[in-house]
């Protein structure tokens, strides 16, 4: 089993970030939420590995600012 990558893995971080924001441009809040949900599902299916996904879910929860979303 491969571990969840927590070191730099994107070749072009600025490029990806810009693309991500560009996709949201002009979308309403509801449309943006729907977009994000589709994106998560597409990526989750691609990863497939359930342990990796569980790690990612926890990491996302743990990384919330202190006091706002502690587990």
């Amino acid at each position, binding site marked *: 089993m491969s571990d969840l990558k927590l070191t730099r893995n994107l070749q072009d971080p600025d490029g990806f970030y810009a693309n991500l924001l560009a996709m949201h441009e002009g979308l309403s809040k509801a449309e943006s939420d*729907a977009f994000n*949900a*589709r994106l*998560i*599902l597409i990526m989750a*299916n691609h990863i497939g590995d359930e342990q990796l996904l569980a790690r990612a879910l926890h990491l996302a929860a743990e990384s919330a600012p202190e006091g706002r979303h502690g587990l």
Partner: protein
Amino acid sequence: MNKIFEIPLYPYARHPDQDATHPVRHKVIIIGAGPVGLAAAIDLAQRDVPVVVLDDNDRVSFGSRAICFAKRTLEILDRLGCGEAAVEKGVTWNTGRVFFDEREIYAFDLLPEDGHKRPAFINLQQYYFEQFLFERVQQLVDAGKPIEIRGRNRVEAIGAHPDHVRLEIETPEGSYELHSDWLIACDGAGSPTRRMMGLDFVGRVFEDNFLIADVVMKADFPTERWFWFDPPFNRGQSALLHRQPDNVWRIDLQLGCDIDREAEKRPERVIPRLKEMLGEEVEFELEWVSIYTFQCRRMERFRHGRVIFAGDAAHQVSPFGARGANSGLQDVDNLCWKLAMVLEGQAPERLLDSYDWERVCGADENILNSTRSTDFITPKSDISKVFRNAVLDLAARHEFARPLVNSGRLSVPCVYDEGPLNTEDATGLPARTRPGAPVVDAPLGEGWLLDALGQGFTLLAVDVSIPEDLTLAGFALTTLSVSAEDNPTLRARYLGDAQKAIYLIRPDQHVAARWTDYDAEAVTAALTHAIAKA
């Protein structure tokens, strides 16, 4: 009109027990002649255990209730002697269609696996299901089996004692008292037994209301299951259309939380709604309309000394996934051989604790599955709705998202992994027939594997020789020697890569133990363990 649910099948008749000076003591009393109580009575009577069934009513249940009966249930009915009647009358379907908003997003074929006597499931009105069970009871009565149903006998009070149970029963001619060594409470989700004993029933209540209508129509909708998310005719809600025998269709419309239940049930409200769904030109007649809310909950324990709970009395699920009656039948399957052996003095009373362990495990699995379906169908928060709709939008275009669509996961039997009666598994045999799993059917000559199993324990030998007459630990086992040589289905299900195998199969057709060779001592030990003797 005389539909089956309008005919008293077991009308009240005075019984000599009512005139006895001292309360008569019975071996087993069952409260409730619903699908679960009737099945339990048949199972016990077939094992020659005398049984009395008490029911408040005198006929099959009416109204919109169970329609989907799964393969395992049909297999259990085969063992109980009424599988054929159910399958003959039932409707078999294979195609499901899922709609979202105004369009069909995909269709699926259930592609049921070959090599089983029974289909993945059938649709059949619950009143027919109960009728077939009742007819089987009558057959057994005619054959002299010790089984009796007393209609309009309502249990009013229960006294549970360490070695027996006292019941106070109300009839049209007054009340009387009975004693019983054992009591099986199959008195439904509202179980008066549970209430009278002050026992808990905890879990989740879903707030959404559902309008369930059974309509008779001569429309040529195909024999398919259609499920809508957020359709134009029921905005923001879900809908289901499913065929039953006799041109009856089950329609299920989610109505949301804050509704006027009485108003929604009125034909002047229901009919336009259905017309919008089915099309103006379609002619139909309402057979039954009701409004339900659903719960997912169970008792903490199903055995309380001499009182044992089964079916809806012990656990309740939302109907998405058709796990109510189906799981109740598995309770019966699990319980009756154990109770019969305890009554015969062949097994210690603690064998019944394994009923509790195994069926609580089954109930938890069913509750988990039906809760997940309910959460998908009726999203509880804005974000869960966002994800739900994202899944549906993706599913319209991409195969990967379709398994995430959850409009009900159809009932499959629970595998009792780690169960208290299992013996440690041998290595190298197929996972699906591991200890704790229900036996998987396979063709056998002109017939079927499941039909060849005994009512007691069976030793199945695949390409190994075993003695024909086998008595181990004082029990005569049914032996079944088969060959996988020209039977690839049997090979895949029972051997995998192995050359030979021995399976010890319980009376409820679950695997207790298996080996890759015959060893009388090992089988004896596993058998003793499977009846909680060691």
